């Protein structure tokens, strides 16, 4: 029974992990229909922000929760102004440009920090006991953070004027533009917000995985598949796809080992996309966010 | 006069979007060499009906039958493959190609190269496209693009023509010419024309089908319909 609970917790963590690495991408995709292939590098930059900050004596919580989203958010803003804004409506070109950006970021970070960076940070919370099994307290914390983050995004969309405008833009960008909403400003804010969420995610994961210039490559494929499987609805899509794919991965990994866990995840996604080419939410939750 | 053969028919055709019944149980018949206009206010369902005919939409229930073949749920290319010429509401052209090349693509679909070239030449004369023959259609004005698309339909020599708002965005003169052209096409083929422009309809059609709330409200000559107070109300609101 204890094993069951601790295993269930593990699978929930797997789901939360998937949601965490995908949310930033989902925000940008859901609101702007921009598939940001440099998303993995935003996560990576978040991680580096935390590592550099803590190596210079900054408190780790401050670095993870404030600095990482702030720094990456600003980077996202710059990227949007310099690159993305010229490519709206050209989906394929955006895909290509962000791909180039991803290589560029990896190159820049490798040039500055070298291939590997010493990290002295470790998950800052102790161990939680479930019966005779132990779980990482930090993993529990991450699950809570993901839930909080999802609620926060929901409230932002529901209650703030930015959210209202954003929802309008999501439903019908042309109409929103006709109503005098500055889509350019909305897009700029959205992209920056998405980048900030990615930065936060990267920062939070850094103590668990460490940082490498090309760690984004490991994340991007999974985040990508989660978001595409979820469809354009940011919250419903990310959540449902994370639960499905994370659940499959967790269960299969435990039963047969990690080799087939990831393969199962990818296969689930492909079958899903064949059945529902516009993602889960494109099929079931047309009106959700 | 003998009743001519039915070439296009719908039986109990319905198309629902969520709770909205855009097309509701429509029975419709078109006979050989007939020219029929579909009219109705915005949202009456005529465009949805049209898209069900062309295969762009798959109806929720009911059947579309063209020349005794059930075409329900078939792809647009299957419909076109029966020799039906289709013009969509928004002009669908090969924007990177010249007018002539667009026409040629259409003509060569059903005819050998030699015959296709002749057809292209004829079409250019018939639609007076000579001055924009070599222009890239992406750079043409809306009305000209409409004409090129009509030309693409004509160049294939279809026996049945489905036109969605062929006169939209045309100048008065162009509209007049288009009406003449449609009457000309009608010499050899049956037509269904979806249109808003009353004068245009008056110019080309004898029998008109009036759509209202997804169903056929009445089918008669334009004169009768304009005289009918309920039809006027539907079409023009309460302004009468």
């Amino acid at each position: 029974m204890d094993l069951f609970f601790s295993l269930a917790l593990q699978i929930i963590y797997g789901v939360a992990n998937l949601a965490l690495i995908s949310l930033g991408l989902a925000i940008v995709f859901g609101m702007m229909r921009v598939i940001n292939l440099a998303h993995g590098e935003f996560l990576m930059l978040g991680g580096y922000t935390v590592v550099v900050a803590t190596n210079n004596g900054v408190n780790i919580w401050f670095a993870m929760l404030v600095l990482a989203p702030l720094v990456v958010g600003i980077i996202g803003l710059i990227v949007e102004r310099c690159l993305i804004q010229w490519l709206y409506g050209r989906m394929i070109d955006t895909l290509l440009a962000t791909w180039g950006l991803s290589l560029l970021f990896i190159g820049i970070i490798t040039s500055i920090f070298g291939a590997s960076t010493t990290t002295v940070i470790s998950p800052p919370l102790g161990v939680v006991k479930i019966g005779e099994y132990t779980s990482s307290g930090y993993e529990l914390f991450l699950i809570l953070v993901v839930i909080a983050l999802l609620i926060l995004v929901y409230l932002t969309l529901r209650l703030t004027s930015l959210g209202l405008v954003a929802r309008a833009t999501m439903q019908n960008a042309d109409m929103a533009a006709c109503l005098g909403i500055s889509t350019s400003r909305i897009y700029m804010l959205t992209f920056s917000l998405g980048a900030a969420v990615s930065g936060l995610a990267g920062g939070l994961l850094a103590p668990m995985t460490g940082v490498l210039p090309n760690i984004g490559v490991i994340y991007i494929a999974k985040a990508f598949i989660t978001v595409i499987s979820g469809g354009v609805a940011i919250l419903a899509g990310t959540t449902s796809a994370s639960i499905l794919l994370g659940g499959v991965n967790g269960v299969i990994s435990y039963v047969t080992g990690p080799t087939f866990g990831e393969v199962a995840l990818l296969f689930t996604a492909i079958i899903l996309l064949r059945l529902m080419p516009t993602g889960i939410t494109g099929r079931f939750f047309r009106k959700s966010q | 006069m003998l009743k001519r053969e039915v070439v296009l028919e719908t039986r109990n055709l319905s198309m629902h979007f969520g709770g909205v019944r855009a097309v509701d149980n429509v029975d419709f018949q078109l006979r050989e060499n007939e020219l029929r206009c579909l009219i109705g206010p915005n949202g009456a369902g005529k465009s949805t009906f049209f898209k069900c005919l062309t295969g762009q939409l798959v109806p929720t229930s009911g059947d579309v039958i063209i020349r005794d073949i059930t075409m329900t749920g078939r792809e647009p290319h299957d419909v076109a493959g029966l020799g039906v010429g289709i013009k969509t509401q928004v002009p669908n052209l090969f924007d990177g190609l010249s007018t002539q090349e667009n026409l040629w693509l259409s003509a060569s679909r059903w005819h050998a190269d030699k015959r296709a070239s002749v057809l292209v030449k004829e079409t250019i004369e018939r639609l007076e496209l000579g001055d924009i023959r070599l222009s890239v259609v992406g750079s043409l004005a809306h009305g000209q693009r409409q004409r090129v698309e009509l030309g693409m339909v004509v160049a294939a020599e279809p026996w049945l023509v489905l036109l969605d708002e062929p006169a939209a965005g045309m100048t008065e003169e162009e509209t007049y010419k288009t009406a003449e052209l449609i009457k000309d096409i009608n010499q050899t083929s049956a037509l269904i024309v979806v249109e808003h422009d009353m004068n245009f309809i008056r110019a080309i059609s004898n029998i008109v089908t009036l759509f209202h709330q997804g169903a056929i409200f009445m089918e008669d000559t334009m004169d009768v319909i304009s005289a009918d107070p309920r039809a006027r109300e539907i079409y023009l609101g309460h302004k009468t």
Partner: protein
Amino acid sequence: MSISRRSFLRSTAGVTLAAPALINSAFAASHGPIKFVSILDQSGGLDIYGAPMVDATRMAIDEMNEAGGLLGREIELKVYDPQSSIQFYTQFATQAAAGDKADVVHAGITSASREAIRPTLARYETLYFYNTLYEGGVCDMNNFCTGSTPAQTVEKLVPYTMKKWGKKVYIVAADYNYGHITAQWVQKYVRDNGGDPIEVEFFPLDVTNFGPTIKKIQSSGADMVMSALVGGAHVSFYRQYAAAGMNKSVPVASTTFGVGNEHKLISAEEGDGMICAYSYFEEIDSDANRDFVARFKARMGADAPALNELAARSYEAAYIWAEAVKAAGTADRMPVIEALRSGVAYDGPSGRVDIEPKTNHLNQNVYLAELKNQSFNIIESYVSQPPTDTLMVCDLVANPDQSVFKFENGLKAAGIDI
């Protein structure tokens, strides 16, 4: 010079094709600089291994040149970066052999890269050194493999840690040839020492979430974990393992932790207590090593990476090659191979190393060390260990005309049943 060579090639293209080796010897200059080519990844995913190896190689060559070169000739070092991509390995190896006419090529990190270039270098008769620890099994007259192999390290590590921690061993390994073969040796030695290898699990190199496995280790009742995890992504295992509090209750031993300087990448609390086995540690307590480390740090300054077996062995391999050149009196391939195989030895930072002639592998010291506060404390050392695994399948003395990789299909296919 180069022009005449090119025009010669042009006119004799047909001959060249038939016997590329002919030109090599015909043009192998016996004067001018000796050409030493290094092909190691300095970008892409493998750079954490490749960069320190290149630094150490540069240092060795610079030192030799400062000391007057070899046989009175300067050594010209050419370094290529294949960017962690196999196609560039083949390209640069061809360039080194057929273009640069290298006297020796030191190259390769992954077994895939070695297997891609080994045939090329054999075809163009260019002496080849492979200085990475690997799964063993290369049996090739032209190829000297100087890294440690699993039998050398695992044989020592397993009995020591089992005695210390317990007999139930949970094995986690990277999912590729090296991991599979290492895991097999671990299983063999665990059984030989009366223990129980309760589970073996393999991880693709890009896995970063080890949660389910950590839970499995907890529920398995293992006494210890043997890790043959490899690469940057797998460092996550040690972090997550510590975060679950497991490193205190079920300790970890490894023959792969540390070559990518992983012990510097994770914190002291996460790493303390791990026991690792290599043929070199920066902390080896000998004059030769202290001197080596001091020179390396002085040379590299503040950015000096930690020294590990890969870097030290790259340095030592350059030197043992140089010893053989001196002994042979020429840099030509065959005399140097002869010299290497006839007992040339080098006293390097890891201790005395020499070539084991049946396998062209290295007899080398093996050390066990415990990780404490991001550095290793040597706890055991074993002098001049032979490459026992490769010896089981390879005898170049009896059958010199070989160029095969015996373990490509695993141990069983090579006739080793364990």
